[in-house]
């Protein structure tokens, strides 16, 4: 019995010891959704106009990917696709300017998506067609539109949040 207790204490002490030797900010890169770490990171930064950015991450089982697109300018297009067995992904798009378009598609489970747009006549679209998804859109300006579509007929534990400030903005959330 004493041996079992000592063995349990030793097992429990391993994470504590490893955490104690990690530098501030953690031992691993902070990527992946909902606490899933160890992943592939992709980042695109574009400054200017009429640019187009596209990230596609086809993850396998137990994969965790992080995709980030940042654009500053006019009439830029951003797109992130994380399809096919994409398990624990996170996607983020930030755009500042006019007439920009942001698209995120995630056909997997336990995914996150974040879109931030500042300016005029911008459009954000997020599609998540599986369980345990989260989508959040923030838009500041005039004439912006946001569309979030989540779930299938089988349902899911989805959460959608849209925050808009300005004039003539529109927001649509579909959950099924």
């Amino acid at each position, binding site marked *: 019995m004493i041996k079992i207790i000592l063995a349990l204490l030793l097992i429990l002490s391993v994470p504590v010891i490893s955490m104690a030797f990690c530098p501030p900010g953690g031992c691993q890169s902070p990527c992946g959704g909902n606490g899933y770490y160890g992943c592939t990171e992709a980042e695109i930064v574009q400054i200017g106009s009429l640019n187009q950015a596209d990230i596609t991450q086809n993850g396998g089982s137990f994969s965790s990917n992080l995709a980030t697109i940042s654009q500053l300018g006019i009439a830029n297009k951003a797109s992130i696709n994380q399809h096919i067995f994409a398990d624990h992904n996170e996607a983020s798009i930030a755009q500042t300017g006019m007439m920009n378009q942001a698209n995120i598609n995630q056909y997997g489970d336990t995914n996150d998506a974040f879109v931030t747009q500042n300016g005029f006549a911008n459009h954000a679209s997020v599609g998540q067609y599986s369980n345990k998804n989260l989508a959040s859109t923030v838009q500041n300006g005039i004439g912006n539109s946001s569309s979030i579509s989540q779930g299938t007929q089988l349902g899911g534990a989805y*959460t*959608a949040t849209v925050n808009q400030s300005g004039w003539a903005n*529109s*927001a*649509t*959330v579909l*959950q*099924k």
Partner: protein
Amino acid sequence: MKGLWIVTGVITLFGCFIAEAFDCGYIGYRGCGIAQIEQIGSFNSAYIEQATISRASILQEGINNIATIKQNLSSIGSNAEIFQQGSKNTAYQMQSAMQNFAYAQQTGFFNSTTQIQVGSNNSVSAIQYGAGNKATQIQLTSYNTASVIQIGFFNVSFQIQGVQGTNGNSSNLMQVGVGKVKVVFQ
């Protein structure tokens, strides 16, 4: 003894799972989709459509805003809430299942609320502060509850419950101010 510990562990894990998943819904219906839209400004429109046990919330501040929440047949035990501050705002809430709850609150002038529920054991509530506001509540079938509170001037309210052969509906309408019109049809 070992089997007892295993059973206890399984029950504990199952309880944690239930506690995490069941975090929203109405009258005991838990585990649902959540949609929230917040708009600060004018001439904005917000639309939420849900076909699951769900909770929807729209907050708008400004003028000429439109908020729509549609919860379909499978959305039993869902919540729909709309909060609007300003003038000439419009709120629509449509629910077509059982044991749903719809709430609309408007502050300002010439605002309009329309709440429609098709199903039984539903509850609808509207509160309007200001002048020239209009509230319309329509509930079909039986055992529904409707309530309206209007505080201000020249407000109008319509409450329509059931069709021929339905029973168990109740309505409550309170208006404070002058120039008020109320119509209750059961």
